[in-house]
């Protein structure tokens, strides 16, 4: 009887643990989207990616359609190349689409803003492995401040 009770309580313990793991896995941690497999890959070259990281979101009008899977430097012209993994469900973007690196809120994380272009006749849709031509770099605050001070200096001299 005693052994029966011990085994019963250990069973309850195991069930509690499984419940806790399920809570952590399903409710607390994110389900990694990039492992789904039904994605396609686009590339974009930027002059400056600012604070963009791997796993940053790719968004169209605030809706996440994919993630940044890798960031590397082009060996030839030394510009950053960002690999974007987009869910296959959203596969019909025209070639005239543009991407820019934006910041969510004043201090928030940086993400890739995807702006679908207009589709005319004769403009194909983006395919797996395509490079996006129209890109806008991240705003770097220090550059902005530098530019501002430089301009002020200029106008002071002019007066």
């Amino acid at each position, binding site marked *: 009887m005693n052994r029966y009770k011990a085994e019963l309580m250990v069973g309850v313990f195991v069930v509690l643990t499984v419940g*806790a793991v399920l809570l952590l896995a399903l409710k607390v*941690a*994110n389900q990694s989207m990039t492992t789904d497999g039904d994605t396609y890959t686009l590339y974009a070259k930027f002059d400056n990616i600012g604070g963009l990281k791997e796993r940053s979101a790719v968004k169209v009008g605030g809706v996440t359609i994919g993630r940044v899977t890798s960031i590397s430097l082009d060996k030839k012209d030394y510009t950053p190349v960002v690999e974007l993994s987009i869910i296959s469900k959203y596969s019909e973007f025209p070639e005239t689409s543009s991407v820019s690196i934006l910041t969510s809120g004043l201090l928030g994380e940086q993400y890739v803003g995807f702006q679908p272009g207009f589709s005319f006749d004769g403009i194909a849709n983006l395919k797996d492995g395509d490079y996006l031509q129209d890109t806008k770099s991240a705003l770097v605050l220090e550059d902005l401040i530098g530019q501002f001070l430089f301009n002020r200096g200029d106008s002071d001299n002019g007066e």
Partner: protein
Amino acid sequence: MNPFRSLGASTIARVEAVGRAGVMLFGALFALPKLKNIALTIKQIHVVGVQSLLIIIVSGLFIGMVMALQGYTILVDYGAEGSLGPMVALSLLRELGPVVTALLFAGRAGSALTAEIGLMKTTEQLSSMEMMAVDPLRRVISPRFWAGLISMPMLAVIFSAVGILGGHLVGVDWLGVDAGSYWSLMQSSVDLGSDVGNGVIKSLVFAIVVTWIAIFKGYDSTPTSEGISKATTETVVFSSLAVLGLDFVLTALMFGIE
């Protein structure tokens, strides 16, 4: 006594103790569990794990609640109280869950293990087992070691989960943080592999260290009532220090280098 000689003697004694601890761990690990030993291990999981559940759940609940309260008062100044969820979840999963569980485990279960094995040794139960051709490593030490190893990661996971629910209780139900942002910001910043997984690895390492120290201190205690009390104290002190020191090393390895 010559100071050099006493230094040498204490060094040799320490190295010998480490050696004995290693031999005991080897014996406990490779005393392969027979079917009968699995039953013994389950009984020890009940003693070591199930009976620690109450203190783990209550501490987890209150630590989660306190963190939500403290975090809220700071974050609300910046209008960032939505980030309460990630703050509570990450600090529990990465640090507090494994560490506090290991400290509580050392106090609740580790000291009991040391005292039990120490008393077995004092009353010569271990030697009588050897007389009857029963290996005490296999019969007494191994089930307790495996039980500690299995129980502590489970307790740490329960601790974190209860703590996050406690944070929800204070943050959302009492202080009025939006429930949606509590969970969704938590989901976007907690990663299953690198946060939950590393926390479990941490608590597995702590489980090995704490259980090993507890069992060895009992097994190696001086067989007197004074010796048992000294061994029990040393278990709690040494394993707490080892857990905190190791935690820094593990954190540096896991989260230090981006």
